[in-house]
């Protein structure tokens, strides 16, 4: 084999490896989009004065809980990646199922008891997990009552690779505001 033939072969090999890296990286972006979103949510809330008090993740299903810096209100965000596969992501978008829950501390035992009863009832209703349906739950051990709403978001609306297109925490904040209003009304009877 001549020197020129060797050089041409090596150049072709380099091009094959470079193309492979590009395809591999497209896969990596798709697999990590939900992690990017979760970090953006944490950064936004912690920088806004909220304290991260819970973090659970198995790679595709994530849960974070925050407590207001000045006060006792809590916010819970559960995020599940629905389209980590780049083919599904291309067809449907980088979809994530997001559950937003707003929690208020209740000093009244009957309010928590009622919330738990409501939760048991809503578990028997088929459409409780549909987008926009608000359910209420109580946590006896900590004295909190939570209102929860499920949403399905497309991360392409918020991120272009690692670059933020629009803050996802802004949309979670408006969901939390609505939940706060609903929960305050429910607790007031």
């Amino acid at each position, binding site marked *: 084999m001549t020197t020129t033939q060797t050089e041409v072969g*090596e150049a072709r*090999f*380099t091009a*094959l*490896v*470079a193309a492979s*890296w*590009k395809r591999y*990286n497209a896969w*990596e*972006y798709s697999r*990590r989009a939900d*992690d*990017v979103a*979760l*970090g*953006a949510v*944490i*950064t936004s*809330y*912690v*920088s806004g*004065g909220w*304290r*991260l*008090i*819970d*973090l*659970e*993740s*198995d*790679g595709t299903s*994530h849960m974070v809980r*925050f407590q207001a*810096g000045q006060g*006792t209100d809590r916010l819970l965000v559960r995020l599940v990646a629905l389209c980590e596969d780049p083919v599904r992501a291309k067809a449907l978008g980088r979809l994530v199922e997001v559950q937003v829950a707003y929690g208020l*501390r209740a*000093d*009244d*035992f009957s309010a928590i008891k009622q919330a738990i009863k409501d939760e048991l009832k809503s578990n028997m209703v088929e459409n409780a997990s549909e987008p926009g349906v608000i359910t209420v739950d109580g946590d006896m*051990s*900590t*004295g909190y009552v939570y209102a929860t709403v499920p949403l399905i978001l497309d991360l392409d609306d918020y991120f272009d690779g*690692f670059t933020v297109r629009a803050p996802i925490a802004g949309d979670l904040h408006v969901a939390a505001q609505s939940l706060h209003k609903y929960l305050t009304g429910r607790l007031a009877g």
Partner: protein
Amino acid sequence: MLKLLTDFAARSEARESRDEAVVGQIIAAMGRRGFPTIGFSTGLAEDSGFQAVQFATPADPVLHTLTVVLDRKTGGGAIQEKIIGSKATLRMVAEVKNFIADPDDLLAMWRTDARNILRMPMMGQVRLDHQLNTVTATKQILVELTEYDGPEDTQRVEQTLWALYGELRDALVPYKRASIVDDPM
């Protein structure tokens, strides 16, 4: 009575969640620097004090990723926290990835790799580790969580992170090679 019980539960929760609060501060500090999260690992159920977060470093032409691991060792209970504090190890791992394909470069890298694989070279307290196309630098320190978990500790968190980052990055600069593709991270 309910208020008394929930107050106790709230104090206990605040103490138990000190490590999560520090992780939150770390993620926020990295985010403000332009390093997005790309991976989370919160350990096994029986090791709830372990939390690892991986960051991409798009603003850094040398590094591929940074991983920060916070592993709580003490302070889960009120008495333990009072006596010995809330101690945790904070480990940072910086990674350089070389995207190369030239057989001569690959051969040179393999030689360096084979030479270093059993040596585990130390630069100060920084441990270097060669793994084929990747070189990592690791440093671990002990931290008191109560000094890092509040909004008033933001500056201390950033100082600690950037000191570690700078030290690890300096150790890795000599190992970065010209790449055939843009580093995606």
